[in-house]
């Protein structure tokens, strides 16, 4: 009934086609290409041909020969990978548990619900760098954290060459704090969609609160929990501005990369001109994220149903 209007539709889509062509589709292909070039120089556009060494070099497997000496680069494998894994396995489960508890509590109260909901959403509308700087003050050698927990002043957490495990603790506290609002919002909207009948049935069976939570709430909320889990995993792999906000640099002391992440490496490669290495790291990051997204699609089709 409605006729096709090809040229008109593409005219409406023209801005999107041009912009995504230049700034999304072309970069995707080009970055993958650069990752396989040896010593690519973007200012002149020259390279020394095809190589797979960029990936090996980023991961510290293949050395770079400089004046006859073999140099292995280890910052990614020694710092970025373990840091990312710690962030993934500490912040994701903890923040999901806390936000789930808050969402369920919010869903069960009548008074002050709106005001609590608003308070819990506030961290979302803040600037990651600005709040990171506030946490840096809290975790200062003479900061609130040391004072509240009666620690020796000064105990350094994020600067003055603090132990990386201490900085990682502060970073995890900050990441969890900053990631709660989005999760609470998603869980709460999921909870509001659960049919009240299930809870009435549980009441008739005089099921305990805990039993109701584990047997009704969690299974019926599994699509949201799973969505949040995957997006948090992906977010943890891309962590950058939280470290930048909290520390202002990639380590607890100048020139130290002990708080490095993969994304740091990618941006540093632009600064020092080795974009082919940054591109290789970006491709690796892309593959990790792609596999997580693949798992999400696969499992959400198979498992997350009730």
């Amino acid at each position, binding site marked *: 009934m409605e006729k096709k*209007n090809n040229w008109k539709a593409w005219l409406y*889509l023209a801005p999107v086609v041009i912009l*995504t062509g230049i700034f999304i589709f072309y970069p995707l292909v080009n970055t993958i290409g*650069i990752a396989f070039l040896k010593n690519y120089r973007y200012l002149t556009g020259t390279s020394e041909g095809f190589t797979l060494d960029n990936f090996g070099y980023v991961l510290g497997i293949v050395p770079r020969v400089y004046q006859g000496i073999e140099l292995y680069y280890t910052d990614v494998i020694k710092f970025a990978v373990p840091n990312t894994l710690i962030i993934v396995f500490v912040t994701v489960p903890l923040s999901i548990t806390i936000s789930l508890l808050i969402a369920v509590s919010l869903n069960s109260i009548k008074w002050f619900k709106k005001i609590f909901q608003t*308070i819990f*959403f506030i961290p979302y*509308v803040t600037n990651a760098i600005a709040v990171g700087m506030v946490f840096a003050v809290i975790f200062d050698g*003479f900061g609130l954290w040391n004072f509240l927990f009666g620690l020796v002043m000064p105990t350094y957490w994020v600067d003055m060459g603090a132990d990386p495990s201490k900085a990682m603790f502060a970073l995890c506290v900050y990441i969890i704090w900053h990631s709660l609002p989005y999760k609470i919002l998603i869980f709460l909207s999921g909870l509001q969609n659960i049919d009240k009948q299930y809870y009435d049935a549980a009441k008739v069976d005089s099921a305990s609160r805990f039993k109701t939570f584990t047997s009704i709430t969690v299974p019926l909320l599994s699509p949201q929990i799973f*969505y949040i889990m995957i997006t948090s995993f992906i977010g943890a792999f891309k962590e950058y*501005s939280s470290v930048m906000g909290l520390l202002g640099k990639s380590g607890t002391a100048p020139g130290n990369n002990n708080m490095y992440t993969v994304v740091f490496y990618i941006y540093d490669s632009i600064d020092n001109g080795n974009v082919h290495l940054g591109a290789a790291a970006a491709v690796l990051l892309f593959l990790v994220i792609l596999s997580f997204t693949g798992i999400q699609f696969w499992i959400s089709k198979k498992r997350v149903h009730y």
Partner: protein
Amino acid sequence: MKLDIHKLLHLKTRSEKNEARRLRPEYKSIDTRSMTLVIKEGGLSATQLEKLQKVMKAISMILIYAFLLVMAIIVLVPFYWMIITSLKTNTEIRASQQTFWPEIVMWSNYVDVFDRFDFATYLTNTLIVGVISTLGTLVTTIFAAFAFARLQFKGKATFFALLLATMMIPGEMMVITNYITVSNFGWLSNQLGVFTAMIVPFWVSVFYIYLLRQNFLQIPNELYLASKVDGKTDWSYLWNVMVPLSMPTLISIFILKLMGAWNSYVWPNLVADKQEYRLITNGLRSSFSTTAGEPEYGLQMAATVLVTVPLLLLFIFFRKYIMKGVGRAGIKG
């Protein structure tokens, strides 16, 4: 088989009762008609049980409120600490005895901060970049969402799927080539170019196209057919019917995109190499990180307050739009 209800419930038949009365004459005086039935569970009667349940419910409610209150305080502490630190002297901030209220309220921190932190320049830059990139995004989003929701054309499903697929690609994948592209375009040499580099690559947001398309699809087909009967063009239907009907979504997009510009850090940091081109977040991080020796937390936190308050104001006025726009993302998952 005839079911003997008396046996089943361990009740006595009339003849058994009479027999029992005969054997135990003292039972005769008990008048069963004035008795009430009491069901006992766990050693408690029904009324006691009801009372206990009420008490348990009250206790669990108190626990829930206590939990929420503690969590709310934890969420708010950084904001409180930011504000009071911005009003303290440096000696008070770095004392081993921390205070929860400034001994001397240093309003002067808010005056001094402007010497170190060029708030006016950063604010102007951020507003210019934020508003132009937001308006541009709205235009491209409206056009694309209209084409995907209303028009029939070859390659529609394929291109839409292709666009959605780009949402899974991390931005870090594009950033290297985009940096090379904007420097090849010669955009990194002057202020206009740097601003263009901060604006143009962000004129497309696939997620907002998806969001608005969903909204456009909900507009009944009859409206379109009616406007066709009236001899209206697609163009006037888009601007006179679809856009006004989708105002809430468009406002959500506007606010979220503007907040994105206010918070953007990485890309502006790459392309704006001169201080006077910087956006507010870059200015905030770089203005205080070069000081040697004692950090001046008072000034730093005053600047942080200046960056945070506009966001909070935006949140207060547009809470509904922001939470709706953000919450929409989860539904597709």
